């Protein structure tokens, strides 16, 4: 009786965790095609509190599971706010995890987390230590002080930080010092009077000064290019093109999913004109991703949804379709043999547009007939032509033709379903995993067996522990350097 009971408990725990990690992989609290952002925020917040209350250690370890930035930030904040509930034996691991995860966040997100600590009134010894260490580890703190000035000021006030003289003066009394020794502070001071000095500042800061000086937009964009990050270049490309000017952009430097979304933002004619260029850029980006997290796959087929619902929402424009396109390139680069099956048959993947109904059954059948070793389905889980067509095909295939699971079939879902705290699955027969960026596909394939239910809680715990060691080991090396 007891054994059965504990087995059931571990079953429930496993399901809870899989649900939570899946949500953390896909949900960003933004509006989706089928649901709004308010419901999303409430739903994901509840899920976080539930897991934090019941499985604190595993909740912290989720930080290492390759989840998206939004959820990483949420976990860091919630852990810091409830530090007293940590068991003494886990205290050190939790602290290390938080520090490592915070270090890995992109700077704008990390600063937002630090500012949020003040807004939520979190103030304990550990949170102060985490903030102090984060600032200490920034090599270009003066640059960040210029770019995130108000946030750094808030963080410094809240944590009573002792700052060096020039930095403190820059944040709190900028006119106190007549000429700064630090180069970038000096440029910032000069920018108010000097038109030339603004071009040494980060783009977002320089924009404000440019407006004050009344500098023409095209002249400004032309000269500030040196200071732009790759993301900013990508974002401003279109605006610049409207004014008939070039922003030199090395497409090969872009992260894969961002690049795919950029490609989809171009009109079909533009994509057609620059076909080879874009194709090579996507391919390079895919290979770069693979260098970081290698995958070696055999015969791979993808079933990619390009129906109307992949157009996403006003906040996540064409994101599901972008992920499908990025996954297409990534798996093509990783596989020995590769074929893609779109719901609306495409001649060129680059020209894909979100249009029409979702007919998943036909491409799934095509993929099965081709005889792939691995089939990756990227879809939001809604299918309507016919309803449950692909689900039934997969069920029949699993039960009758392939009961030993020789063909691996994984469903990657970029959309979080608010109402059920779940990802919309096609069928219980195949695992459904959340997917926010195509770059996460290697993690996804590793995680899929837990979503399927064949692996138990202990395996999941071991998997998470291994990822934790990986993360902490990596970060140790980084600080050692």
């Amino acid at each position, binding site marked *: 009786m007891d054994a059965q009971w504990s087995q059931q408990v571990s079953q429930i725990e496993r399901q809870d965790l899989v649900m939570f990690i899946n949500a953390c992989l896909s949900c960003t609290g933004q509006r989706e*095609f*089928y649901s709004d952002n308010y419901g999303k925020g409430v739903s994901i917040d509840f899920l976080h509190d539930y897991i934090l209350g019941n499985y604190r250690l595993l909740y912290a370890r989720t930080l290492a599971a390759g989840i998206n930035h939004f959820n990483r930030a949420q976990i860091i904040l919630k852990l810091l706010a409830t530090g007293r509930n940590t068991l003494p034996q886990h205290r050190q691991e939790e602290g290390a995890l938080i520090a490592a995860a915070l270090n890995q966040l992109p700077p704008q997100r990390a600063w937002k987390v630090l500012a949020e600590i003040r807004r939520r009134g979190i103030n304990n010894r550990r949170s102060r230590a985490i903030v102090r260490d984060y600032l200490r580890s920034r090599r270009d703190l003066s640059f960040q002080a210029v770019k995130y000035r108000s946030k750094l000021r808030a963080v410094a006030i809240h944590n009573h930080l002792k700052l060096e003289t020039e930095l403190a003066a820059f944040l709190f009394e900028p006119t106190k010092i007549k000429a700064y020794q630090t180069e970038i502070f000096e440029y910032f001071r000069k920018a108010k009077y000097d038109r030339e000095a603004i071009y040494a500042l980060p783009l977002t800061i320089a924009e404000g000064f440019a407006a004050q000086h009344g500098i023409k937009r095209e002249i400004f964009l032309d000269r500030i290019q040196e200071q732009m990050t790759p993301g900013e270049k990508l974002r401003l490309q279109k605006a610049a093109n409207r004014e008939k000017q070039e922003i030199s952009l090395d497409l090969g430097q872009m992260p894969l999913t961002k690049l795919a979304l950029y490609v989809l933002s171009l009109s079909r004619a533009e994509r057609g004109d620059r076909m080879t260029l874009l194709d090579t850029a996507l391919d390079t980006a895919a290979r770069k991703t693979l260098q970081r997290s290698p995958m070696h796959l055999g015969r791979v087929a993808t079933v990619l949804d390009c*129906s*109307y*619902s992949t157009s996403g929402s006003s906040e996540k424009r064409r994101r599901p379709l972008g992920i499908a396109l990025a996954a297409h390139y990534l798996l093509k680069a990783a596989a020995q043999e590769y074929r893609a099956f779109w719901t609306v048959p495409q001649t060129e993947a680059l020209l894909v547009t979100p*249009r*029409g*109904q*979702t007919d998943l*059954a*036909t491409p799934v*059948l095509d993929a*099965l*007939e081709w005889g792939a070793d691995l089939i990756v389905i990227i879809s939001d889980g809604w299918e*309507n*032509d*016919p*309803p*449950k*067509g692909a689900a*039934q*095909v997969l*069920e*029949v*295939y699993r*039960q*009758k*033709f392939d009961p030993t699971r020789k063909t691996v079939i994984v469903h990657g879902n970029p959309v979080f379903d608010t109402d059920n705290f779940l990802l919309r699955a096609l069928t219980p027969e195949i695992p459904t995993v959340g997917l926010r960026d195509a770059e996460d596909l290697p993690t996804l394939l590793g995680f899929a067996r837990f979503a399927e239910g064949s692996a138990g809680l202990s395996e999941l715990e071991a998997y998470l522990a291994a990822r934790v060691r990986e993360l902490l080991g990596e970060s140790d090396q980084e600080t050692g350097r």
Partner: protein
Amino acid sequence: MSRKQPLLEKLSLRGIEIAPSQVYGGIRLVPLLRSHPRQDLRLQRRQYQEELGIVAVEGEMNHPEMAYFSYIPHGLVLSWGESATEAAFGTQLQGRDGKVLDYGCAKVRLMHRMAKRESRNSLRFLPLHLAMEGFLGMFFSGPAIAWQEYSHQALSQGLGSRGELLYSGGAVEGLEDALRVFEIHENQVGMLVFVADALASAFIVPNPQDYRALHRTLLEDFYGELIYQYGLLYDTPFPMDVTLEADKIQTLPELRKAVAELRSQWGKFPGFMATNLLQRELNSQRVYTAGPFGLQRFITELEPKGENHIGEAIISETGEIQYLKTYRLSAAQTRRVYLLSQLAKYDWNLEITARELGQTRDELALRLDKAGFGYLLKQNVLEVARKNLKKGRG
């Protein structure tokens, strides 16, 4: 001059294929596909901004002898013939349509006729309002013989004005979301709208480009009380699944065949759910003949206890439906028109009508009162009827 179109006797979806339905909340939307759309017939939407539309049904626009008052958010412009294909969307200048009066608090648009020719080959008509006007006007002439039961007002002025309360598509819970997330097929020309699996409306246009442009107008159409209440009450339709017969499938090609069968079965099924509209006898009335096409409005043969629809359609010379829009009457509306039609059938004689309906004269009088037509009868007729009924019970 081409010969006139035959009047519709039955709706049939000839030349139109039904695709699997898409469900969102309690709304089931069934796409209708056409593989060979006509190129010589186009529909275009014309937006009206005014709070009230007044359509002169008879007589001059400024001195209407009979007028139709309603909120009319949009009209449709039909163009046919060779030049219809050349007129791309948004490039045509909109003709002046009636007259707008601005009262400060509200604007009113005066229009002439439900369907009005605008040029050699274009016609403006008001969708659904065309059918609704026919419905309201039908059997509404009043008694031709001065039977003594009728009130003075009914005899001297006819039945007066008649109104119906309707709900716009925006008020139907979930319809807006369902239309937003609906994934339109490449060659889709129409849609069957089910709310909690009750057929609310059927909508067909000549070709797919027109459909994409008119998809959202379903939200501006009106729906009956029943549909509004169903929208509030149900947030899921009946669970319906068609399953593959797994036992018979041995190979992948067999599986593929089974899926194709599944798809066609799914298609047929909503067609079966719409049989109350598609297989019914119709009373049709011709409104306009546009070249080889005929515009007509219709009402299904009335079933007092069943599902009844009114609507309008454009029929090509081969008898295929090019345009269709229907409205499902609510139960109260059906009761009202049924009573009026029965009275008209028996020359407004209460005695004979009551006998034919298997009731007493008093019961019929009270029934008329309940349906909202009490003002037709003299006060004493109703009072006597009430008294008699009380006595009978006592």
